[in-house]
């Protein structure tokens, strides 16, 4: 894990003169720079697909499960207050959580985030 690198603030700012990975190279040269109308563009089959994939963030079932697991693994100093008993059990809990979820959705998606909405549905 990244724990070992924690310490000085310089660990949180990394500099490199030149891109290292292929994805970083592509981000500099593939869709950046001059393009003119009348030219033959070499077809870069496959490569364009890679970058397009990287740009679409899909909130999927897998993502949700991953976040749930990640949150469950956190080693938090347990604070008092809200516990299992407050949430109730069975359908009551489901409804409560559902309501919270809808509320969060509204709060978190103000105008203009059409792209995210689209990728969810």
């Amino acid at each position, binding site marked *: 894990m990244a724990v070992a690198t924690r310490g000085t*603030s310089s660990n949180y700012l990394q500099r490199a003169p030149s891109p290292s990975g292929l994805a970083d190279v592509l*981000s500099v040269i*593939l869709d950046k*720079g001059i393009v003119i109308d009348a030219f033959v563009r070499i*077809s870069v089959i496959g490569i364009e697909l890679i970058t397009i994939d990287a740009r679409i963030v899909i909130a999927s079932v897998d993502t949700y499960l991953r976040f*749930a697991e990640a*949150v*469950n693994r956190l080693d938090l100093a347990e604070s008092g207050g809200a516990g299992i008993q407050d949430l109730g059990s069975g359908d009551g809990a489901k409804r409560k959580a559902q309501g919270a979820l809808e509320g969060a959705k509204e709060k978190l998606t103000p105008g203009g985030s059409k792209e995210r909405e689209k990728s969810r549905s």
Partner: protein
Amino acid sequence: MSASSTEAPPTAATYAYGVVAADSIPTLERNGVADAPVRAVKSGELAALVSALPEQQFRIRRRDLLSHLSVLEDAFGAGTVIPCAFGMVLASDDAVVREFLDPRREELLGLLSRLDGYGQLNVRVSYDEQVVLEEIVRADPTIAQLREETRSRGEDAYDLKMRLGELVAAALAYAREQDGRMILERLVAQAADVAVDNPGDDVLKASFLVAREGSIAFDRELEDIAREQAPRLRIDVVGPLPPSAFATLERGAWES
């Protein structure tokens, strides 16, 4: 592939890397795409850096992508260059002049003077997910409750897990948006220009146009942000690079 069956001229085509001022053409020692030597095609005050592209060369290899960047980096190291996007091929050297340099002369001269003395810094800001997830659990009682519930119920809490995960994902997206905007504002204030990319799973991905000499204010801002936000954020800076994100002709095709 059938690409080679198109009506390409029998002679080699010309691959273009970028444009420089005709009175300061760099000496480029490394070969370019398809391992061909790089040379200049001049027209008036402008020169395009080009190399021959053999007719049969249609498959792009990884090293061709790297060569394109290397040529631009070498030219940038020697002076000012307007980068072309990867893959720009014209029928001949003559076509480079007639279809590229001459019709775009004014725009290219304008870009040359605008980019003179500037370089591009690619900044990527990402979270230490562990730290930010902790923040999210602490800040949101609903998430904290769901976490307790799913932890104690184990494997049979699939529905609750899904809700927990969706709430966490939404909270994370919101945090990214807020932090991304804040950092962008601070860095833009120290840069000549910015081109913002879709950050994907990161907090911010953007290219900044900064003075090649004395970008001290920008560097200091980066360091301040990194220090203030440790350990939750990590900043990766690449550059200075040839300013490809700012080399756009009038239509600005790549603005997001």
